[in-house]
């Protein structure tokens, strides 16, 4: 087979997106939906078909030139390797299921063509990030997912808050993007190429300070997309979008793009110990921050959003600890169970009649479809890291990798990771209890869910539960398939004695049980939620929005006012108007000379004549 056919993987969703955007509203609804789903499903099948291409060093595919920069031409090129292949498979697979779910979820939506068009476009952009051979194509995808995220968060644009949330997401992520762009410019200036493999190969020759600076720039770029500190404020608001969007973009794929970027450039990043430490610190702090916030949230999707942020923080921590395999492992399992959780949450909201507030839910175990409970529970167990689930193994791997680093900093981070694990168990089971236990507190009328909203949950929940098989540690008889698959890309090898591994696994299990016990004690019976200052602080995400508003938005607006009104109108325009007024005043004074009478002009004429005459006389005398 021709390797250029690899381009079909991203281009099929793109083609379907374009078709849907242009003609979607004129096609029968079923055709538009089929087009959207089949485009993504086809790329999933193609990924399976091309799986072999990822062996060894992977396969390059060149479509054509894009941008000639001097003598160098930056092409549209793909690189399908061991890192990209599982990611591609995950993106297309999860996306296919979410598309199916979306067909059911958006059943009553009038503007379906725009929705599916954008969703397909998102898949294309995400695949561009995943498969990019050079940073510019990656940047194309990077901005593309931002755009789709923007447009889909604000999908229900009639409500201004939704559109505003989209704008916020776009702007905050774009702040991250400029750091990525800076890194891109710098790398191009250093190496004269943007090809990722070439950059990784030459990274060793950079000065240490340059490496650290580049790593920090890349980290900040990744933070924007992955909603890590300090660019995390947009993710919770992004839940304004339709639930399939939250599941696909803000849980499974786009928010992990930052992790993927760091993994892609890991050979470069890993050369800078300071940079690695920074990544780990950012990851750990975000994990803790988001977990605390999740404790106090009242909207089901916001709880999940903060949990996503927290889990992505774990992935950053893994990268910082040098374990690409651990990060990718958690990325994959997280994608599965978080997508399942979000889709189940969508069903729950649907059943509750559009009610978002978990304090007004409850009793769904008795009255809702039992199927939903099991799926949600499966997702929750994975999220909490209950033993033997996918989330358990992947999170455990990360904590092990951090612990084995051994430095005081990493030990502290490991402590934060453990604390976060405990908090995760607490808020996850809080969610489960509040939603499912007890008696109904809302006005939802239980009814049947469309088949398409129920069926896609199962494979994801199962994948989440069994995700551990992907990278089962030798401790329990596994072969670490993913680590072997990644080969040289897997990052640092983790060496730890069995006793330590057992001890850590036991500790993790203990924390989960502790968290579950606390949640059961506190939320087993609904006792209402009294609001105090601390919970309010956490509900507002540590008042980060207010801080950003104070530090950035207000100065920006003030500066805008200064420029538009202070400078342009008061300074430049006023100066010019003043000049014009002075000129007019001069003219007013001079107009007194023109009396309009012949005699005045004649007198002037004679005086002028006399002056000229006098001048001649003077010249004559000289």
């Amino acid at each position: 087979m021709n390797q250029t056919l690899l381009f079909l993987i991203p281009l099929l969703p793109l083609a379907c997106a374009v078709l849907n955007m242009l003609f979607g509203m004129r096609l029968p609804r079923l055709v538009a939906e089929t087009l959207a789903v089949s485009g993504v499903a086809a790329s999933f099948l193609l990924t399976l078909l091309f799986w072999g291409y990822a062996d060894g060093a992977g396969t390059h595919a060149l479509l054509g030139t894009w941008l000639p920069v001097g003598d160098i031409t930056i092409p549209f090129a793909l690189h399908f390797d061991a890192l990209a292949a599982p990611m591609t498979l995950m993106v297309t697979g999860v996306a296919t299921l979410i598309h199916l779910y979306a067909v059911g979820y958006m059943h009553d939506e009038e503007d379906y063509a725009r929705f599916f068009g954008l969703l397909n476009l998102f898949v294309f952009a995400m695949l561009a990030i995943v498969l990019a051979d050079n940073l510019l194509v990656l940047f194309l995808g990077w901005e593309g997912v931002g755009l789709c995220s923007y447009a889909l968060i604000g999908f229900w644009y009639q409500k201004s808050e939704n559109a505003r949330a989209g704008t916020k997401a776009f702007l905050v992520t774009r702040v991250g993007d400029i750091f990525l762009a800076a890194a891109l410019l710098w790398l191009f200036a250093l190496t004269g190429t943007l090809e990722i493999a070439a950059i990784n190969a030459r990274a060793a020759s950079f000065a240490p300070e340059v490496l650290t600076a580049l790593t920090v720039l890349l980290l900040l770029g990744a933070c924007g997309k992955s909603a890590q500190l300090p660019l995390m404020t947009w993710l919770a608001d992004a839940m304004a979008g339709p639930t399939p969007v939250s599941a696909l973009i803000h849980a499974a794929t786009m928010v992990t793009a930052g992790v993927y970027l760091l993994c892609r450039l890991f050979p470069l990043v890993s050369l800078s110990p300071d940079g690695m430490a920074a990544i780990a610190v950012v990851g750990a702090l975000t994990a803790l921050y988001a977990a605390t916030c999740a404790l106090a949230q009242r909207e089901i999707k916001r709880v999940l959003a903060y949990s996503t942020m927290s889990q992505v923080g774990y992935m950053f921590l893994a990268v910082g600890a040098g374990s690409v395999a651990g990060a990718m492992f958690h990325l994959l399992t997280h994608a599965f169970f978080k997508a399942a959780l979000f889709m189940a949450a969508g069903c729950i909201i649907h059943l509750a009649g559009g009610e978002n507030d978990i304090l007004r839910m409850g009793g769904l175990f008795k009255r809702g479809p039992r199927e939903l409970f099991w799926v949600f529970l499966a997702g929750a167990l994975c999220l909490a890291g209950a033993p033997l689930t996918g989330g358990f193994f992947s999170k455990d791997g990360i904590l092990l990798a951090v612990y084995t680093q051994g430095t005081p900093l990493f030990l502290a981070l490991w402590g934060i990771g453990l604390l976060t694990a405990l908090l995760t168990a607490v808020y996850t089971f809080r969610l489960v209890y509040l939603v499912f236990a007890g008696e109904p507190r809302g006005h939802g009328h239980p009814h049947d869910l469309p088949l398409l909203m129920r069926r896609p949950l199962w494979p994801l929940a199962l994948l989440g539960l069994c995700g551990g098989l992907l990278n089962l540690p030798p401790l329990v008889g596994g072969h670490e398939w993913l680590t072997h698959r990644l080969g040289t890309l897997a990052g640092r090898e983790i060496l730890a004695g069995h006793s330590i591994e057992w001890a850590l696994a036991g500790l993790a299990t203990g924390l989960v049980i502790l968290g579950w016990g606390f949640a059961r004690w506190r939320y087993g019976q609904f006792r209402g939620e009294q609001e105090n200052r601390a919970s309010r602080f956490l509900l507002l995400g540590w008042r980060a929005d207010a801080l950003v508003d104070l530090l950035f938005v207000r100065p920006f607006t003030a500066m805008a006012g200064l420029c538009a009104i202070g400078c342009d109108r008061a300074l430049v325009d006023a100066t010019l108007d003043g000049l014009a007024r002075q000129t007019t005043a001069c003219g007013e004074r001079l107009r007194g000379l023109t009396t309009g009478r012949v005699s005045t002009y004649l007198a002037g004429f004679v005086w002028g004549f006399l002056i000229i005459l006098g001048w001649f006389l003077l010249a004559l005398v000289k």
Partner: protein
Amino acid sequence: MIVPFAHVLIFAAILFTMGLGCVLARRNLIMILIGVEIMLNAAAVALVGGSAYWRQVDGQVFVVFLMAMTSAEVAISLAMVVYLRRRRGTLEADRFDGLRG
């Protein structure tokens, strides 16, 4: 030449000055026009004198052109005087200040 050329020029200059004085001092449009006529004649004197001095006929030819021009000018300006008298009822030059800025 019967007299020194300078005397002719002085004569023309005095005449011219008189015309100029008339133009400047008088406010009646007719008198201003008369002043202009005097000035033109002063020029004619200088031209004829020059013609005699250099023994060239050209000076006299120019006097003829000057006369033709004068008649054109007088024709127009007198027509305007009539027009203004009809429109404004006065010939005081200072009453006409349509050009005032």
